[in-house]
C-alpha cells in the first residue's frame, strides 16, 4: 500500500487540508465538533449528538460517476471528519450572498423568513440546510417528498406547517442558485483531490484511522489490523463515541470505496454492495422489492439514509435491524471477502447472536445477494414503532407466502425483529401453518401459537405483552392485506 496521510475537502469554497499528526483533533472528530470549534461556523447546532434531531444538518456535495455534483443532507454529529475527504461541505453560513453590499438570502432562507418558519430558531439552521438539499434535488416537490426531506429535523416550536409552506414556495427553480454558478470551480477542486487514489492512513497519537480508497487496500488493512472497527456509514458506530465517550483506537472506514456501492441485476438475483447507502438502495428497489422499499421509506431519516449502508445494517446484527427480516424472507445471502477468498453465507446463518455475526477477523462484508421473488410468492414487510418515522422498531416483521393451487400454505417464512435478541424466524407458527388452508380461521389459530412462541422483553419502547400482541396481529394484517386487498 502506498498511503497518504492527510484529508482534503472543499470548505468555504476553498481547498482545505487537515493533517492529523499536527492537529489537536483526533481523526474521528465529528464534523459537528470541528465546525463548532471554528469562530466562523457556529450556525450549526447540536441538539442530541445521536442523529435524531437534525439541528446539526449540513449539506455535502460530492462527485457522482458522471463527475456532477450531488447534494446530500447529513447529520454532522455522526460524520467523522475523514468521511468528508474529497467532498464539499456546505454550511448555513455559505447560503447567503452579499450583493451590492446587501445581504441576499438564499430562496429557502427568504421563504423561511416570509412564512414565519422559525420561532426560537435553534432548529432553523438544520432545517434550512435540509431545505437547501431539497431545493437542489427537486423541482416543485410533492408534499410527501418535502416531508421526507424534513423528517430528520425536529422542531419543538412551529408545528412544521410554515416550514412545509416555505419548501413548497422556494423549491421551484430547478435547483438553480449561486451554487450552480460556481459548480465547475468546485468540480475542478474535487477532481484535483480525487486524482490522488492513494489510500489514507491517519495516525494520531490516540487513534489510527484508515481510509482505504479501494477494496484491496481495505482488505489489507483488515488483515493487518484485525481488531480495527470497520465502519461504512458509521451511523451505528459513531454513537459509541458521541454518546458513550468511547475513543475507538483503530478504525477502518469503507465509506470511500466505490466498488462496494454497486447495485447489480443478475438473472435470478439482485446484488447490493455493502457500501451502498440506504437512500440509494431505496430508490433502486422500489419496483423490484416493494416490501424493502416500504421499510426503507420509514428507515431513520433522509440524513441517516444518506450515509447509512445496507452492509452496516447487516453488520450491526441488531435485533431491530430493519432490513434483516426482509432479507430473511427473501432467503438472501451475505457475501464476505478476505484477501484470498470470497464466501457466501445465508443471512440466517450469518446472524449468530445479539449483535454477533459470522465474520472472520480478516473479512469484510462486500454485498448482499437477494434472489428475485418468484411470481407466485408474496413478500411483505412491516414496521411497528411508537412514532411513525425516525423511530426504532418496537416490532418488525416480514412474511413470505406461497400458496398451492388449492389455497393451502405451501411455503411460509415469518421473520421478526424486536421479539428476541436477534432477528428470528417464527418456526413453531410456520410449522402450524404449513399445508393448512390459508383462511382467517387458520390465521387466527396460528396467531395463538405466535403469541406464545417468543418471550420478548419490556423496555423503554414497549411492554412485552404489547410486542406479543402486535406481532400476532401482524400476521392477521398480512392475511387481510393479501386476502381482502384491504390496505389503508
Amino acid at each position, binding site marked *: 500500500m502506498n498511503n497518504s496521510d492527510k484529508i482534503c475537502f472543499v470548505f468555504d469554497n476553498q481547498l482545505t487540508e487537515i493533517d492529523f499528526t499536527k492537529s489537536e483533533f483526533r481523526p474521528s472528530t465529528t464534523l459537528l465538533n470541528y465546525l463548532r470549534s471554528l469562530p466562523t461556523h457556529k*450556525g450549526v447546532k447540536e441538539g442530541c449528538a445521536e442523529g435524531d434531531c437534525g439541528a446539526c444538518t449540513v449539506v455535502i456535495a460530492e462527485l457522482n460517476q458522471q463527475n456532477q455534483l450531488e447534494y446530500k443532507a447529513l447529520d454532522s454529529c455522526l460524520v467523522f471528519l475523514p468521511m468528508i475527504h474529497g467532498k464539499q461541505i456546505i454550511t448555513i453560513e455559505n447560503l447567503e450572498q452579499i450583493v451590492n453590499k446587501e445581504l441576499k438570502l438564499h430562496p429557502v432562507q427568504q421563504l423561511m423568513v416570509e412564512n414565519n418558519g*422559525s420561532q426560537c*430558531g435553534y432548529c432553523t439552521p438544520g432545517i434550512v440546510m435540509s431545505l437547501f438539499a431539497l431545493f437542489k434535488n427537486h423541482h416543485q416537490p410533492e408534499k410527501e417528498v418535502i*416531508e421526507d426531506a424534513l423528517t430528520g429535523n425536529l422542531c*419543538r416550536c412551529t408545528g412544521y406547517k410554515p416550514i412545509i409552506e416555505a419548501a413548497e414556495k422556494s423549491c421551484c427553480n430547478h435547483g438553480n442558485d449561486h451554487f450552480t454558478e460556481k459548480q465547475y470551480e468546485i468540480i475542478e477542486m474535487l477532481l484535483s483531490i480525487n486524482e490522488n487514489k492513494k489510500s489514507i492512513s491517519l495516525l494520531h497519537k490516540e487513534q489510527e484511522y484508515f481510509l482505504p480508497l479501494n477494496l484491496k487496500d481495505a482488505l489489507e488493512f483488515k488483515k493487518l489490523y484485525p481488531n480495527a472497527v470497520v465502519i461504512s456509514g458509521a451511523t451505528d458506530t459513531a454513537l459509541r463515541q458521541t454518546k458513550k465517550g468511547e475513543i475507538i483506537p483503530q478504525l477502518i472506514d469503507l465509506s470511500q470505496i466505490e466498488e462496494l456501492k454497486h447495485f447489480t441485476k443478475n438473472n435470478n438475483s439482485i446484488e447490493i454492495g455493502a457500501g451502498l447507502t440506504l437512500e440509494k438502495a431505496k430508490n433502486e428497489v422500489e419496483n423490484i422489492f416493494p416490501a424493502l422499499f416500504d421499510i426503507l421509506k420509514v428507515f431513520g431519516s433522509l440524513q441517516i439514509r444518506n450515509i447509512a449502508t445496507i452492509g452496516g445494517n447487516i453488520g450491526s446484527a441488531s435485533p431491530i435491524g430493519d432490513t434483516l427480516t426482509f432479507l430473511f424472507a427473501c432467503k438472501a445471502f451475505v457475501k464476505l471477502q478476505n484477501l484470498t477468498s470470497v464466501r457466501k453465507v445465508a443471512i440466517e446463518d450469518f446472524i449468530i447472536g445479539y449483535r454477533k455475526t459470522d465474520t472472520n477477523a480478516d473479512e469484510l462484508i462486500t454485498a448482499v445477494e437477494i434472489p428475485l421473488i418468484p411470481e407466485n410468492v408474496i413478500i411483505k414487510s412491516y414496521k411497528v414503532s411508537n412514532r*411513525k418515522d425516525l423511530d426504532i422498531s418496537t416490532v418488525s416483521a416480514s412474511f413470505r407466502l406461497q400458496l398451492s393451487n388449492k389455497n393451502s400454505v405451501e411455503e411460509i417464512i415469518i421473520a421478526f425483529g424486536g421479539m428476541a435478541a436477534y432477528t428470528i424466524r417464527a418456526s413453531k407458527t410456520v410449522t402450524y401453518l404449513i399445508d393448512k388452508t390459508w383462511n382467517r380461521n387458520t390465521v387466527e389459530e396460528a396467531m395463538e401459537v405466535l403469541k406464545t412462541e417468543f418471550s420478548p422483553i419490556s423496555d423503554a419502547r414497549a411492554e412485552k405483552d404489547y410486542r406479543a400482541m402486535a406481532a400476532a396481529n401482524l400476521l392477521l394484517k398480512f392475511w*387481510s392485506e393479501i386476502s381482502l386487498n384491504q390496505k389503508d
Partner: protein
Amino acid sequence: MESTQNQIYHDSAIKHVSGKSVYINDMDAGTQMLYGKVVYSPHAHAKILSFNIDKAKLVKGVHAVLSYKDIPGLNQMGPVIHDEPCLAEDKVNFIGQAIFLIAAETMEIAQKAEKLIEVEYEILKPILSIEKAIQYNQLLSTPRIIKRCNADEAMQKAKHRLSGMLKTGAQEHWYLETQTSLCVPGEMNEYMVYSSTQNPNETQAIVAEVLGIPRNEVVVEIRRMGGAFGGKETQGNHVAAWASLLSYHTRRPVKIHLFRDDDQIMTGKRHRFVSSYEIGFDDDGMITAYKAELNSDAGATADLSMAILERAVLHADNSYFIPNISIIGKAWKTNLPSNTAFRGFGGPQGIAVIENAIDRIARFLKKDALEIRYKNFYGINDRNTTHYDEVVENNRLYTIYDQLINSSEYLKRRKEIDDFNANNEFYKKGMALTPVKFGISFTTAFLNQAGALVNIYLDGTVLVNHGGTEMGQGLHTKMQQIAAIELGISPEFVKVNATNTSKVPNTSATAASSGTDMNGMAVKNAIDIIKERLLTVALSEFNQKTYPNPSEIKNIVFYNNVVFDKIHPDRIILFKELISKAYLQQVSLSSTGFYKTPNIYFDRETGKGHPFHYYAFGMAVSEVKVDTLTGQNEVLRTDILHDTGKSINEMIDIGQVEGAFVQGLGWVTTESIKWDKDGRLMNHSPDTYKIPTVNDIPADFRTALLKDAPNYNTIHKSKAVGEPPFILAFSVWLAIKDAISAVGNHQFEPDFELPATNEVILKSIEKIRLLSK
C-alpha cells in the same frame, strides 16, 4: 392605523435562517473559558456516607472540583420554598441531583475527572409513583380545595353517575437548546451571567444567594432561548448557579451546556397526574355534580408544584358550568427530579379529567360528545360563574362553536366516519371537538407586574428593554410593533434589547402566557411618559408663530415617522427632528415604564376570587384513523379556531397556536416517559423519547384566528396565546378514543389514558374485542 405594522416578521428571523443568531453556547468567552460539568446522583434515594474528590482535582486541565462545602453563600436554589440544595450534602433524592461540579479546559478532561470521584452511598428505598407517595403519605403541602354548593348531595340526587380514574403522563420539554449558562467574572464580586432563563430576575437572586453576594453585583442577561416552554422558568436557575460557583472558584469564565441525555435525566418535566373523579348528570347530559381529586407528582422538591396544582384545580371545569362541584388537588413528593412548569401549567392536566368524563357521559347516553359539551358550556348571562366565583365575561364559546362546526363540516363528516367504520374491520376512524377556556394571569397575584426601559437616541432610533424574555414566541417582535405603533415610527427604527437585569429589575418570569400583556403595557407606559415630554417640545415648536390658533396637545399625532397637528396638518415635524429638538431643550429621552394587572386577587383559604384578568377561548375538531391491529394512527384533519383578541401579529399568533397544538399532540400520543424500578429515566434521549416530526402533524391542518374579537383592557386589544392552544390537542386524544370505541360499535367504554401510545390503544382495542365476542 396599526395594519401597516401588523405583519412584520419575527425580529430575529433573518438571523435564525442564516445561522447568525447567537445562543449562549455559541458565545465565545476567550481562551480562558472553562467547561463546566455537573456530576449527579446515580441513585434515586441514598445517603452520602463519604466522598473523595482529590484525585479528580489532580487531572491535568482540571481547574476546580467542587462540592457543597465550596458554596460561599446559601446552599439553596428552590424558587418558592428553600427546599432544594444547590449541591447535595448528605442525601440525594433523585437520579440526576447535582452533587459535584467540575471545571476543566475541555469537556473530555472533565469527563475523565468525573470518573475519579469516589462516593460511598447507603442506598435507601425510593418512592417512584404517586400511588406509593400516597401510601407513604408524602404530601408536599396542604391540599388545594375549591368547592361550590354541595357536590356530595347533588351527586346523590343525580339521575346518572359515572366515576373513574385517569392517568395523564409526564412530558419532557425537549427545547432544542438544552439548559445553558455562561458566567463571566468581573472585578471583585461582579458576575455577568448569560443564562438561558425565562426568569432572569430569579436567576440573579439565586446566583447572588449561592455566592453570598448582594444582587447588585450580579447581572443576568439573555438574548434568546432556543425554546423553553416552562422548562427554563425555574430550572434554568440551576445551571446558572452552578456555572457561577465554578466561575467564583476559578476566576474564569465558565460555561455549562448540558448534554441532551443529562438534561433529560436531571431536569423536571410536566407533572404526571393520577386523578379520580365522579360526575353526575341527567338524561340530557346536563352535568349536575362533579367531584375530582387531582394528584400530581411533584418530584423531589416543591419548585412550582403548588402553583401548577392550583391552576389544575382552577381549570378543572374547563369550559363548563357545573353547579355543584368539589375539586381537591394534592401534590405528592417522590424521588424523581422536581417537576416544573410546562406550557399550560397544570391546566391541561385538570382539563383532561373533565373532558374524558364528558366523553364517557356521551357514550353512556349514546349521544355525540359534541352535544354534551355544548349543553354544558358556560352561559352568557347566567350559568356564568366559575367554581372560584369569577364571572366568565366576554364568553366566546358559542361564537367559536358555531363557526367551527360549520367550517369543519362536523356533522357531515361524522356520518362519513360512521360509514367508514361500518365498512372497515381493521381501520377505524374517530373524531372529536374539544374546547378550551384558559385563564390569563399569574394566579400568584403579586407576580402580575412588569417593567420596561425605553431609550430614544439622537438619530431617532429606539431601544426597548423590557422584563420579558424571548424564547421563540415572538415577544420581542410584538414589543417592537407596540413601540413602533405608539411612537408612530416604522418598526425598523425600533430594536428590542437582550433582556438584562441591570436595565429592568425585579421582573416576573416570562410565563403564564402573559409576556405580551404585561410587558407590552409597561413598554407603552414608558413611551407614554416620553411622549408627554415630546408633546411639550412639539407644541413649543408648533406654537412659535401660531397665535391666535395655537396647537393643542390633544390634537398632536405621532404617525408615519412624523409628528403633526391633525387640525393644522401643516404643523408637522419629522420624528427624528423632534428628538434633536428635545435633546437641545434638555429633555430626557429615556424612561422606565411599569404595569400591574388590575383587579387580580385570589384567596387560597376560601378558594374564591378573581385570579384571572380575562379568559382565552378556542376549539378544535380532529379526525384520526387508527390501525386496530397495531394501534398506529394518524391525524387526518384538524380544524382550529382560536381567540387571540385583536391579534398584534397574526402570523406569530398562528405560529403559537399551531406550535402549541403540535406540542400537545405529542403529549397525548407518542411522548411516553417511563422510569425503571430504581427510578432511572428510561426515555433519556430522542432515541426513545418521541416528539412529533413533520409527519405527525395533521395531514390537513387548518388554523384560523377568531375575527372581530377585540379584547378589553389589554395592550392593543390583544389576547395571550402561548399556552391555551396546547389544550386543543385533546381533540386528537379523544378522537383516538372515539376510533377505539368504534371497534366495539360504541357499546363499551374503552380503557384509556394519556398519552394514548400505540400500546395503550392496542391494549384497549384488544380488550374491547374480547368484550364484544
